[in-house]
């Protein structure tokens, strides 16, 4: 039996003793470990096929036996006409979503906390966050049907005012706007929850102090609320930046059609078409690896930025 003194520095104990002491914790974690190993780390090993001429038929084991071709698929991708278009579309969709989507929840949260009718404010909050939980299929389905040139409500209104029906979903010039607006529509209420909580956490005596000094409510918003929530805002902004390139595959896939590839096709959907539909597994993996690598750089830098600016990193 170890003496209690030794318990303070577990690192000093021999490994066998540590294993015996924490065996239950290890046993608990074992299924989780296997999950990560099989569904997260094994695919990383499988990325080797990006450097191989992988042939179907031998299954995943083919990763270990296919001939090595080096950077051939990467060269093919970057020399193709698609590379620039895909990178540009992926970046712009995320960038516009951030610029347009990030401020709205903050403004909404400030508005909703300023309402005197608390019960209405609560109801308004529930209504606005509900769309967040609706599936992408339903959201895109609603959008497509509302915008349909023949029967959609939007074009009915346009026609009622004497305009000509617009085929929104079939026009490259509309794709980014629709993607960004519908995304913001779906998530602004949910994203506001955290800002509402931050604003509600402000000490009420601070408002009183400002009022005594003759501050208007607009000044309270500018000089009290915004500084008080700026930490949360910066933290979430950095977090969003880290995931900037994570364009939702599902939504683009459900929204786009060959007619709007010019603005709508993103790296993830291209990988899907090349890999799953055309069975060019090696080529698609290479494009996917490029995408993952860029994503990695974004997350690492945003984390470093977070540590520097807010003093706390996410992990």
């Amino acid at each position: 039996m170890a003496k209690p003194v030794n318990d303070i520095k577990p690192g000093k104990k021999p490994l066998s003793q540590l294993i015996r002491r924490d065996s239950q914790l290890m046993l608990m974690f074992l299924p989780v470990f296997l999950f990560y190993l099989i569904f997260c780390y094994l695919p990383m090993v499988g990325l080797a096929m990006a450097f191989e001429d992988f042939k179907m038929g031998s299954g995943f084991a083919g990763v270990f036996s296919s001939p090595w071709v080096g950077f051939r698929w990467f060269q093919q991708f970057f020399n193709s006409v698609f590379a620039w278009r895909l990178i540009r579309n992926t970046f712009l969709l995320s960038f516009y979503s951030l610029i347009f989507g990030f401020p709205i929840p903050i403004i909404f949260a400030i508005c909703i906390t300023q309402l005197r009718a608390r019960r209405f404010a609560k109801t308004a909050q529930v209504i606005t966050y509900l769309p967040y939980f609706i599936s992408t299929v339903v959201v895109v389905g609603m959008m497509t049907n509302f915008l349909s040139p023949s029967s959609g409500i939007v074009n009915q209104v346009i026609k009622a005012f004497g305009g000509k029906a617009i085929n929104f979903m079939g026009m490259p010039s509309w794709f980014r706007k629709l993607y960004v607006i519908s995304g913001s529509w779906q998530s602004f209420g949910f994203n506001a929850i955290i800002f509402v909580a931050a604003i509600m956490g402000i000490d009420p005596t601070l408002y009183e102090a400002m009022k005594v000094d003759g501050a208007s409510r607009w000044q309270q918003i500018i000089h009290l609320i915004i500084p008080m929530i700026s930490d949360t805002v910066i933290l979430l902004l950095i977090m969003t930046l880290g995931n900037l390139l994570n364009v939702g595959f599902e939504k683009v896939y459900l929204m786009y059609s060959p007619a709007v590839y010019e603005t709508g096709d993103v790296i993830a959907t291209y990988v899907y078409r090349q890999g799953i539909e055309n069975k060019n597994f090696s080529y698609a993996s290479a494009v996917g690896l490029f995408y993952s690598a860029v994503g990695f750089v974004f997350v690492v830098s945003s984390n470093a930025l977070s540590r520097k600016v807010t003093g706390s990193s996410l992990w």
Partner: protein
Amino acid sequence: MTALAKRTVHKPDSFSTESAGDKALDIVIWILVLFAVAVTAYPFLYVFSISFSDGAAVARGDVWFLPRGFTTETYSMVMGYSQLWTSYLNTAFYTVFGTLANMVFTCLAAYPLSRKRFFLRRKLNFFVVFTMYFSGGMIPTYMVVTGMGLYNSRLAMILPVLLSTYNMMICRSAMESVPEDLFENASLEGASDWYMMLHIAVPLIKPTLAVLTLYYAVARYNDFFNAMLYLGRSDLQPLQIFLRRVLLMSSAEVLQSAGTAAADAAAKNTLKIRYVCIVLAAVPIFCITPFVQKYLVTGTMLGAVKG
């Protein structure tokens, strides 16, 4: 608790006593909030009203707010499709068992990683968090899952998504906030880690677990991606795949599968059929989500503020 909450929340002066500038601000705020609520709620109201309206009124473009010529005939028609029920049942299966597995795995991961004395804690934390930085991507994952023989298997909807690292981290930080004394005392009395997880950690973080259950359940209910990749057989496909066919593709296929004389009438009602399906898909979500509302802040706060 409520008294405390009321006292600590700031409330502005009443409208009648405030200055003209503040009144103007109030009006602007009201307009913005009402606009936000209208923009969010109207699409659902419109879909709902169309789904209950008479086909002729819909065709004339008479329906704007409330149902015109109230009828449930489209509902009876849609509910006659056997594929709807098959996919609904499949979704129920994936949601119930998927969420259950999610919660078990989340706790099994979060508890060991929250124990400060666990000698592998730092290493395993890195092992887990690294998957948020980097992933093998769609194609290698697809190869692994199909290589395990999971194509056209119900397990393909559960195993690849057993755990969300982000949700697990929310659970972990909730468990870390449980006072250490509780574990120490239990440990001195000879409690095992299994006992402490089930009888100390889990009961004390129930609000967080409620929110995580909601997140997982919604994710399983809405899962389209895995179904599209791994389920080719229509008797296994979930509701979202069915919805995609009805909402986004020509509904001819769905109508033919009805295989009756009603198909002709149905062709004229494509729009109504689509909106009925949206209502049927959204109802479970709208029924469950408001129940965990009071916990929602806890769950989201922990995730974003503490990692």
